[in-house]
């Protein structure tokens, strides 16, 4: 979408989107945004400074001194250098990436395929649509428990495999390092393909019907219509859908933790699970603060990028 295309509309809307801002409005605007500003400051400003401070020490809640006295165990940047050599951390990061590299493309392709089937009307569409969206509304912890049951060695998943193959299959999915990771990925794909489907379908429905008809009249087959008309039209939307899922994968915790607890061993330990364990079991909070800060900085860069894409989408992606 070029900027020129949006200009006429923008020009027409301009007088109304910039209301005369008098003193009364400015004061009201300030007051209305104040509570949110304070909450943001409360959760971001002070805590970040606290986190930075603690991350430079060996402080632990077991030390018996308040966090403000953490300087007593000052260790300069030792936490950050330790992080470079922490194999468990790199393992967790690597696993998080693997999950992302498998799940996000799988969810995307499944969702895109499904969405193309839902583009026009057919009997039963509404009810199928509602059912297909259900997984993303299930409480993630409950979804984790569902898959915990499904993947028991005597559970229904093996039961279906047995019925299909005619053999008595008793795979202990959640106690095998590789299969546990597979199981966790299946659960993620089950729960989040619907979100992709929802977003991509919203994009596809926005593709103008007359363009598709014109292309059909000109003799384009469905493959040409799909790749030359539909996909380019929903490019921004695809980027948004993918970005949302990539971000969410970095947070993955609930489902996974209920299913495997990060185990067996550290086989399904992602960054969130790793941080959780160091926080609650090892209790070295100085170190956790350092890890957390590194993640926050990395994601902040991503946030600025995502923000720009969203602005771009708003200015043209929906035309």
């Amino acid at each position, binding site marked *: 979408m070029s900027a020129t295309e949006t200009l006429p509309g923008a020009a027409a809307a301009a007088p109304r989107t910039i209301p005369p*801002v008098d003193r009364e409005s400015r004061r009201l605007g300030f007051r209305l945004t104040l509570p949110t500003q304070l909450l943001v400051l409360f959760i*971001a400003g002070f805590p970040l400074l606290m986190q930075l401070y603690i991350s430079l020490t060996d402080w632990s809640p077991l030390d018996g001194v308040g966090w403000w006295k953490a300087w007593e165990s000052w260790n300069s940047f030792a936490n950050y250098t330790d992080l470079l050599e922490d194999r468990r951390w790199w393992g967790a990061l690597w696993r998080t990436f693997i999950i992302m590299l498998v799940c996000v493309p799988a969810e995307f392709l499944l969702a895109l395929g499904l969405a193309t089937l839902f583009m026009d009307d057919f009997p039963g569409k509404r009810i*199928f649509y509602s*059912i*297909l969206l259900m997984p993303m509304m*299930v409480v993630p912890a409950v979804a984790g428990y569902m898959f915990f*049951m499904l993947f028991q060695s005597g559970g*229904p998943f093996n039961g279906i495999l047995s019925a299909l193959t005619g053999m008595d299959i008793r795979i202990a999915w959640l106690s095998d390092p590789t299969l546990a990771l597979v199981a966790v990925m299946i659960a993620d794909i089950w729960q989040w393909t619907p979100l992709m489907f929802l977003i991509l379908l919203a994009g596809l429905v926005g593709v103008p019907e007359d363009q598709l008809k014109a292309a059909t009249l000109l003799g384009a087959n469905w493959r040409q219509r799909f790749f030359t008309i539909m996909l380019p039209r929903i490019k921004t939307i695809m980027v948004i*859908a993918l970005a949302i899922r990539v971000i969410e994968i970095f947070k993955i915790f609930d489902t996974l933790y209920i299913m495997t607890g990060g185990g067996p061993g550290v086989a399904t330990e992602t960054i969130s699970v790793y941080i959780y364990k160091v926080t609650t079991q090892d209790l070295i909070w100085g170190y956790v603060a350092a890890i957390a800060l590194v993640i926050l900085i990395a994601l902040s860069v991503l946030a600025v990028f995502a*923000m720009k894409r969203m602005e771009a989408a708003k200015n043209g992606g929906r035309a």
Partner: protein
Amino acid sequence: MRRSPAFEIFRYAAIALALALTLLPILWMVSMAFKPIPEWSATGADLTWIPRAPTLDNFRFVFGESTSDLIVALERTAWRPILASLLSAVFGTIIAMVCGTAAAYGLSRFGSGKNLPLALIQLRLFPPMAVMIPVMIMWAFLGLIDTWWGLALIYGIVTLPFAFWLMKTFFDEMPREIEEAALVEGCSRFRVFMKITLPVMRAPLASSALLVFILNWSDYLIALLLTTKNWVTIPVYMASLSSSMTGQLYGAKAALGLLAAIPPVILGIAIQKHLVRGLTFGALKQ
């Protein structure tokens, strides 16, 4: 567009497969919730898809009744976790909606708080686990650990970005004429906001609030870190349920899981129309 019969057959077959895969985990849990203890872990050829002797014992058990000689009645029943989930999610929603709606209006109409969109996107982006150390320290200092109001406060902050962005897109779209008419009549801007804008925006407000509620209700990690005993929420309570005598309490957990899963699924279907907008921060609309 007209489709060929072959395509229709393919479409229904593909959708049928997708439906089956979607429903399998859900139906297994529903079925488990109604199974009596002997059927809980039947395996192999005995795998029970539909309970042979359906019972409500699992539900009665999680609410404290002794239903079998095999398991001891629960000391701590599901009532309190349900209350904790409800209170923290409802009040978290109120905090997020009140602050988010006001700020969204301030930005949309008067251009105040231009830093908020990016600040809130960042808030949304961070894994909760990466900001929990300071939060745990602060909450301990403020005496908010293991209280429903402490949970409500953090839920309100965590879902504030959704409330803000969703309401901002609704305010941006709302025609100004109604407000302008009232201004000409001599109403103050604040009165216009309270008496005209908010009532007009009833439906968007309601669906935003429901989305925020679903998100709050779905939390597990934050409650796991910030509650210990008195105010654990349903997911935390469910995960902790086990018995020294029978190990996993499959049926009881499934019953509880079902109770926890029903509200968001129903509410989610009710606000389907606004889901895309809510979950993509207003970048997309249906």
